[in-house]
């Protein structure tokens, strides 16, 4: 057992801190770091250098702990390690790894603190540091908030470099050639005489060494992979049906289950089996929280039998009818429900006194997530623990949730993360997993595979927050002069954290996300967030608060600029007080040839919204046709500091725009009789091929910090579309989904 195994984690952290400039050296040293989970169970002659790289005589394994929900994050993580380790795709395997505190997310603090992303003041840094420290102590592992790239960008390159230098040291000892004369490429150390030693051959020698931590990360100008177009390693399997998702997994001896729980999200008073229990293949009907599960010998038989059962559901804990939800939102602009006044520049009240005030109200309803792979999970509960197979974004909380049901320690829950067929926030929730665990404890020893029907998935989705805004503003001398923006939404953050059992103190940073920190120097600007008490339970929906607040803000700003008689981009540019943001505006102006003549019935709209630290500007062009609005083109510029893979970047931006526009046009969840009225995709369609515009994407790299791109493309699209529709038709749309007010082709 080499010393590498016991101290690898600590030395790795020192290594990574040292390359970051040595600032955090002492800090890492005083706080006991987490052990390297790969050291456990390592065989003779097998080496691990840090929690992310393991090399045995047979194989190179890279641990990519972030959950892959379609954003290509396994590939991204592997590329970061490979860049420094000098291994090629095809030479290594990837593994999500076991849940472990060593994989704590170092970038979650960015949105968790009430400071603007670009605020680098002492207070902002201290608060982020405190949250980071907490995340580290708790070993908070998570994928979300577009944090994977910022979390892993340095850490994984350092992990690759530490492993590479240690392998070189092993090669040097074996060959007698000085380390300085050794090079690495293609998964091997190359000697000056032209011969080479593969990493797998060096595993045994390396396993006896202390990892070399005195490493320097390569200069970007020498990168082989980062910044260049890549071919994602998961794509061939996903193109041929060979990719196994959670829903495709088969575990020996497993049974199939389907559930029905209260569509009113409350209790079940009772049920009538109605013959379901004697249907072919059905073995039992079991109670679970809020409903029942049918266990059968196939997915189809289980789903069929569930549909046969007659249920008596208790009332919903929220208003039964949608109108009452809206009434509650509208009644929330009060002193008692003020969550936080986020911004108070100048004196809004004084500026409006005696001036002609423009005011309007915007609204955005609940929207479902509904990724295409229905939720599912396989759980086997044993006497002393459990094993779980499913895709999820919070692996260590998953262990806690399952352990509480099974009656074991979280560490006794063995978790196998899976590639997911999308999430958009859906795989931050628990019901599919806790339900599978509740069934599994009633038949210990047997693996239970739960597959939700699409209808059950719709009925039990935790949709996006519902909300409204009230804006007032004035213009003076052709310029925007004052603006009071009040936003009231339910708190998806508190709804989620309630189910997680981890209260989030302080104001909800999401209610006015994308609006309060707007990079505009309007002389008099006030932004207030109001928290509507919990109605239907809600959850994070791709881009979270900014998906509603961005629409409210950039649409009303359009109204003000229109009233001022100014050009929509020029006035935004004049108001813009941040260079990075101004450059994305400049970029879309140029890309779209803003200001050039358009044909009849056409219009352009613009919007700029920051999301998870990424400023995104979009210009949308529409035509008002006889059949309705046609979205012709979307120009997008986004600044993430550094683009890791331009191809995947473009794909994610295009996908984010499609996601945002589809839902803004035609999707919402409404409640009646306490239940979601939309039961499947026919009633909540999103975008389809025939509506999809051309989407032209540009990634900028002016920002100082590197950021993720999964969510940021979403918020600017709906206001840019609404503003374009106004330009083309003179009709201002102030409510999502837009098809309540105007037809689309």
């Amino acid at each position, binding site marked *: 057992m080499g010393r590498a195994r016991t101290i690898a984690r600590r030395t790795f952290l020192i290594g990574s801190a040292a390359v970051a400039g040595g600032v955090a050296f002492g800090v890492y040293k005083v706080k006991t770091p987490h052990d390297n989970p790969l050291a456990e169970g390592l065989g003779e002659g097998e080496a691990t250098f840090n929690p992310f790289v393991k090399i045995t005589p047979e194989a190179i394994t890279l641990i990519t702990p972030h959950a892959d929900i379609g954003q290509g994050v396994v590939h991204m993580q592997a590329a970061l390690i490979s860049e420094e380790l000098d291994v090629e795709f095809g030479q290594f395997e990837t593994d999500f790894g076991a849940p472990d505190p060593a994989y704590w997310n170092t970038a979650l603090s960015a949105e968790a603190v009430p400071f603007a992303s670009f605020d680098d003041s002492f207070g902002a840094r201290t608060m982020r540091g405190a949250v980071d420290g907490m995340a580290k102590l708790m070993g908070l592992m998570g994928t979300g908030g577009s944090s994977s790239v910022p979390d892993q960008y340095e850490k994984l390159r350092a992990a690759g470099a530490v492993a590479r230098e240690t392998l070189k040291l092993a090669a040097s000892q074996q060959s007698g050639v000085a380390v300085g004369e050794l090079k690495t490429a293609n998964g091997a150390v190359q000697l000056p005489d032209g011969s080479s030693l593969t990493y797998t051959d060096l595993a045994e020698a390396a396993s006896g060494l202390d990892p070399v931590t005195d490493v320097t990360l390569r200069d970007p100008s020498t990168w082989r992979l980062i910044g260049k177009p890549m*071919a994602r390693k998961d794509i061939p399997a996903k*193109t041929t049906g060979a990719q196994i998702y959670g829903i495709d997994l088969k575990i020996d001896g497993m049974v199939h289950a389907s559930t029905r729980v209260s569509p009113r999200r409350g209790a079940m008073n009772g049920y009538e089996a109605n013959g379901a229990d004697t249907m072919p293949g059905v073995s039992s009907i079991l109670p679970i929280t809020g409903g029942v599960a049918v266990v059968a010998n196939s997915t189809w038989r289980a789903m069929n039998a569930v549909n046969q059962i007659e249920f008596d559901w208790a009332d919903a804990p929220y208003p039964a009818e949608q109108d009452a939800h809206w009434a509650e939102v509208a009644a929330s602009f009060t002193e008692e429900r003020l969550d936080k006044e986020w911004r108070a520049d100048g004196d809004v009240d004084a500026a409006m006194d005696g001036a002609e005030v423009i005011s309007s109200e915007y609204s955005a309803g609940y929207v479902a997530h509904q990724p*295409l792979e229905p939720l599912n999970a396989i759980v086997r509960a044993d006497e002393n623990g459990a094993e779980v197979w499913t895709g999820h974004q919070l692996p260590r909380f998953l262990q806690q949730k399952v352990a509480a049901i099974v009656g074991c320690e979280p560490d006794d829950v063995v978790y196998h993360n899976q*590639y997911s067929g999308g999430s958009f926030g859906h795989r931050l929730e628990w019901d599919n997993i806790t339900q599978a665990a509740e069934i599994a404890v009633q038949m210990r020893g047997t693996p239970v595979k739960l597959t939700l029907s699409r209808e059950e998935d719709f009925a039990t989705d935790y949709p996006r927050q519902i909300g409204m805004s009230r804006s007032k503003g004035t213009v003076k001398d052709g310029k925007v002069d004052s603006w009071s923006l009040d936003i009231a939404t339910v708190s998806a953050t508190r709804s989620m954290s309630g189910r997680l059992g981890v209260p989030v103190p302080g104001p909800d940073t999401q209610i006015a996300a994308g609006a309060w920190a707007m990079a505009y120097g309007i002389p008099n600007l006030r932004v207030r967030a109001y928290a509507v008490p919990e109605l239907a339970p809600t959850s994070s929906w791709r881009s979270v608060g900014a998906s509603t607040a961005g629409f409210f803000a950039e649409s009303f700003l359009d109204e003000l600029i229109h009233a001022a008689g100014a050009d929509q981009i020029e006035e935004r540019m004049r108001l813009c007080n941040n260079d990075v943001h101004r450059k994305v505006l400049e970029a879309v102006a140029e890309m779209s040839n803003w200001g050039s003549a358009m044909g009849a019935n056409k219009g352009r709209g613009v919007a700029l919204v920051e999301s998870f630290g990424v400023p995104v500007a979009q210009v949308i062009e529409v035509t008002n046709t006889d059949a309705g609005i046609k979205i012709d083109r979307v120009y997008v510029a986004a600044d993430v500091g550094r683009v890791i893979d331009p191809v995947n970047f473009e794909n994610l931006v295009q*996908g984010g725009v499609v996601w945002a526009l589809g839902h803004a046009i035609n999707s919402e969840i409404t409640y009646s009789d306490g239940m979601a009225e939309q039961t499947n995709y026919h009633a909540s369609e999103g975008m389809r091929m025939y509506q999809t515009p051309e989407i032209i994407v540009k990634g900028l790299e002016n920002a100082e910090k590197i950021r993720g791109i999964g969510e940021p493309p979403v918020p600017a699209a709906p206001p840019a579309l609404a503003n374009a529709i106004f330009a083309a038709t003179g009709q201002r749309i102030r409510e999502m989904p837009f098809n309540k007010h105007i037809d689309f082709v």
Partner: protein
Amino acid sequence: MQLTINGTPHDIEIEPDTPLLWVLRDEIGLTGTKYGCGIAQCGACTVHVDGEARRSCQVQIGDLEGAEVTTIEGFGSPDKLSLVQQAWVDHQVAQCGYCQSGQVMQATALLELNDSPTDEDIDRVMSGNLCRCGTYPRIRAAIHDAAAKIKGA
């Protein structure tokens, strides 16, 4: 019930109203064909029945006596991509990938009938296939590319 799946004869005994989708996935173990909606709204379950693109969630096994079914697995594998699949990889289409079996099957059927599809043809034939990740622009480009290759071949 006797039918051929990807060239292999199968004798299947099951309730005749079972959708082909679930026979493929649960009984035969061909999981490349996906369940998305069960009501012909998403296209994730698209297979070819006697050469025609069909939603397998809507086809009852009892109606398939003697039929020839081809699933995504019948068209290629990661090491041996079909021409359409190669175009998909070249354009880096997939995100989560869950819809892509159905997209590839639908596009393959389109290209078998029409090797020069216009954007309007693509809109008409591909709009029944949902992609929640929004890969439509790349799907369109991949279809045009595949069409060019078919004509060039």
